[in-house]
């Protein structure tokens, strides 16, 4: 079993719809949770960064973490064609040494249809 599970999609939704992307994980030591966006033939770019459980909002993006269920989500409101990309969840544990290794999901390929 992989430490991080993510539905690879592909997921296609009409423009303006709310998008929900999810990951589950098995390692209870994970405490930092991230969402990266990766456009075709580009490197991943950080979208959201959350620590422990709770919600975090940034514009049209909301990240949710439920540590009790080992489940994280990314919501995109008013989706735009420019949101079409692969979305990767990533997570790491807490260490006194910092810079813990990131464990990525497989990524979900999202297409927003105009």
């Amino acid at each position, binding site marked *: 079993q992989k430490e991080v599970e993510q539905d690879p999609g592909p997921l296609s939704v009409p423009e303006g719809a709310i998008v929900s992307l999810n990951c589950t994980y098995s390692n209870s030591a994970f405490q930092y949770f991230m969402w990266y966006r990766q456009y075709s033939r*580009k490197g*991943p770019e*950080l979208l959201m960064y959350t620590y422990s459980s709770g919600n975090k909002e940034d514009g049209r993006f909301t990240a949710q973490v439920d540590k009790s269920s080992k489940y994280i989500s990314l919501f995109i409101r008013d989706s735009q064609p420019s949101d079409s990309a692969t979305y990767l969840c990533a997570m790491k544990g807490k260490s006194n040494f*910092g*810079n813990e*290794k990131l464990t*990525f999901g*497989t990524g979900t390929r999202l297409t927003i249809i105009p």
Partner: protein
Amino acid sequence: EAGVVQSPRYKIIEKKQPVAFWCNPISGHNTLYWYRQNLGQGPELLIRYENEEAVDDSQLPKDRFSAERLKGVDSTLKIQPAELGDSAVYLCASSLDRARDETQYFGPGTRLLVL
């Protein structure tokens, strides 16, 4: 501010040939990472440098892969000899340092095809 620079962007080689990838991190970033991303998968860490020191190379296949970061700035990742299964995108990332900002900034990657 310039981002992480990688070259070449694409490389096609025959198996058993050597190949090298180059990375220039964001200016001032002490930590540098090399990742491998297979098709349809997330990136997997190969090696992490803190300045010149390789502090995590547990996932680097040391029989054929090597890396260096001379003077704690640019880095080179080498594969010799390459195998068919090495076909992937090799990503370089950098971060400031753990005390201030651990956010990793990724380069565009080098897409390697081994024939």
